[in-house]
């Protein structure tokens, strides 16, 4: 039996690799040291991931990014996550992975202290009357940003 020759670059490639769920057992692998801490000092954001029954999602992984800022945090038994990012950002790109999500869910978190700038934001304009689900609440000391995967108050997610 002769071995299959190696394919030249580009041959045999048929298109993007499909997504699969992150599953429930990533907690020993995906978190990294100081993962939630994108900035030494900055804005602390806290939130909870909730399912369609309003129950916490204890096996979600949240990533947030903007320019050089990147943070990753898995949810705890209460579905809670947190991160610290530099001050002065207009918004964060947020990506949700979880058991039960066969694909990631992209969304955005807008900072409430920059609402004037948000008036012209092209993404918020597209979102329309559900825009409040994308704006964090200032709770004094920390911002609050809950992610509702399904049902009442469902967070706006984008088609990727």
């Amino acid at each position, binding site marked *: 039996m002769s*071995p*299959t020759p*190696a394919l030249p*670059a*580009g041959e045999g*490639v*048929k*298109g*993007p*690799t*499909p*997504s*699969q*769920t*992150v*599953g429930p*057992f*990533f907690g*020993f*692998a*995906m978190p*990294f*040291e*100081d*993962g939630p801490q*994108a900035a030494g000092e900055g804005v602390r954001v806290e939130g909870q991931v909730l399912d*369609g029954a309003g*129950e916490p*999602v204890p*096996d979600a992984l949240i990533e947030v*990014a903007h*320019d*050089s*800022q*990147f943070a*990753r945090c898995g949810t705890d038994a209460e579905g809670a996550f947190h991160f610290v990012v530099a001050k002065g950002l207009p918004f964060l*790109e947020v*990506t949700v*992975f979880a*058991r*039960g*999500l*066969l*694909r*990631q*869910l*992209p969304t955005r978190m807008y900072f409430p202290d920059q609402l004037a700038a948000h008036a012209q934001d092209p*993404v918020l304009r*597209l*979102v329309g009357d*559900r825009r409040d689900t994308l704006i964090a609440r200032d709770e004094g000391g920390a911002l609050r940003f809950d992610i509702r*995967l*399904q*049902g009442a108050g*469902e*967070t706006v*997610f*984008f*088609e*990727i």
Partner: protein
Amino acid sequence: MEFEPPYLFPDYRSTLLRAPQRTLVRLPDDWFEMAPGPAFGRIPVRPEDADLTRQHAAEPLGERIIVTGRVLDSDAQPVRHTLVEVWQCNAAGRYVDPADQHPAPLDPNFTGAGRCLTDGEGRYRFVSVKPGAYPWKNHHNAWRPAHIHFSVFGPALASRLVTQMYFPGDPLQAHDPIFQSVPDPRGRERLVAAFDPEITEPEWALGYSWDIVLRGHGATPVET
């Protein structure tokens, strides 16, 4: 047919309360391709992270394997110097994660987590042991086919990918709702690695090749 799984796939019960019900908001074309991907540089990558069989005092039990391939963009161009993360259960089908309650033995010489950066040709390479199948409670007598979880960044938000690599010839794939959630059979084929005698090392390890294609184009602008 569609190559990506739907969010709601009732055979995979965990999707029932987690799939969004509202229509996803569609941003202008190429939005996610133009948006730069996360700056993953804070995630530490050490050379030894690519060999999951050498992270403890002794070697883990199981079939030693080499898994390698290229990360490409949708134009089949290599995605260079991007982060690839993997995690898996041990050869007995048990994750080190404390949430895993499957009564199969833990292996004191195996954690099951690895990282590497793709090289100048977009290539990644891991050494590990073949993960076992394990039961889950999705339905009666449900068993997951052997798989390795992969996470890849790429250059854009569009290219961010979390997926699973499967092994060729595994009869459990036909019964697995997570694998079967990919509607097009050609899409499911893309999740299955190939046994590769060229990668297999005599008297040492079985070799598998698996290329990963990320969404988006222009992953590697010409270097000047």
